[in-house]
């Protein structure tokens, strides 16, 4: 039975039977796509391109949500206006060699349940850097070896912010090592107040977590269907 099972798992694109240590919550987006596909009649399933994720309009037959394995960065005295600095790391090494990455989307989630009051409604700035070398403990950021990817001003009206990181994730897989990202959220400059202790960073306390949604196309699984078409 174990030989048959391993052959079956291999044909399903899995090298071994997964043994998850924890059973975390299922991301809403995956659950929604799963439910939608389940309710499609079989005729619609035939017509649709099985190797395309319609929800994101990209080629692919595997969608993964990677949990962030990075940690908060504390470098002694925080710089002025800084609310949060965190290393983000997503372990993409689980992708099989024959999988082609077609989309990567970073989501930064907040758990606030209400709109900010006028005193809390001031702007925040988000910066996302790409690490191109390992950071040493105690070094200030942004440091050399960090490339600015995203800079955006925002107010906390939304539950989450989403960024397209397809290019970076493709590059991690093909050209360079994945050394992660650095997320910084600061109070908007110009009000003259120090961030820590002032009201500007209060709303960022609702920072929850980050995740990376990755769509890949398994060449092995999709070759057969293309040939038939």
């Amino acid at each position: 039975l174990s030989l048959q099972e391993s052959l079956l798992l291999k044909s399903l694109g899995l090298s071994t039977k997964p043994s998850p240590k924890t059973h975390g919550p299922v991301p809403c987006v995956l659950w929604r796509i799963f439910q939608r596909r389940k309710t499609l009649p079989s005729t619609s399933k035939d017509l649709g391109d099985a190797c395309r994720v319609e929800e994101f309009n990209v080629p692919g037959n595997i969608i993964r949500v990677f949990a962030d394995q990075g940690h908060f960065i504390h470098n002694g005295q925080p710089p002025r206006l800084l609310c949060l600095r965190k290393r983000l790391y997503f372990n993409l090494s689980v992708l099989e060699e024959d999988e082609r990455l077609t989309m990567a989307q970073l989501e930064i989630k907040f758990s606030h349940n209400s709109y900010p009051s006028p005193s809390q409604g001031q702007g925040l700035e988000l910066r996302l850097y790409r690490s191109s070398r390992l950071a040493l403990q105690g070094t200030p950021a942004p440091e050399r070896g960090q490339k600015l990817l995203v800079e955006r001003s925002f107010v906390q009206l939304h539950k989450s912010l989403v960024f397209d990181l397809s290019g970076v994730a493709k590059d991690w897989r093909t050209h360079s090592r994945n050394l992660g990202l650095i997320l910084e959220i600061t109070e908007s400059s110009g009000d003259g107040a120090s961030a820590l202790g002032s009201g500007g960073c209060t709303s960022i306390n609702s920072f929850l977590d980050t995740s990376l949604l990755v769509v890949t196309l398994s060449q092995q699984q999709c070759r057969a269907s293309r040939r038939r078409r």
Partner: protein
Amino acid sequence: RSAEPPPVTPSSLCKPRRLYISFSDVGWENWIIAPQGYLANYCLGECPFPLTAELNSTNHAILQTMVHSLDPEGTPQPCCVPVRLSPISILYYDNSDNVVLRHYEDMVVDECGC
């Protein structure tokens, strides 16, 4: 002249039969989140001579049933096999505790043929 074949009842003709695959029965409930199982079906039944249009027969199968009717010992009847399958999606945890949604083609037998 070959011997008369036994009469074929509609229930013994090639067609999809109900098969529910439960992932807990195969010991996969620890890592598959959903579905807990699915109606996979399978094909079973005879492909007798003469093959009717309802049996989704290939030209090859039609000729094989003719030859079988002439020489039952030397040539078998055509096989009853899936001719139309549909996909399912599976939600599961991988070894790194990530949640994965994967689309698998050809998992459910919708139609059988000869």
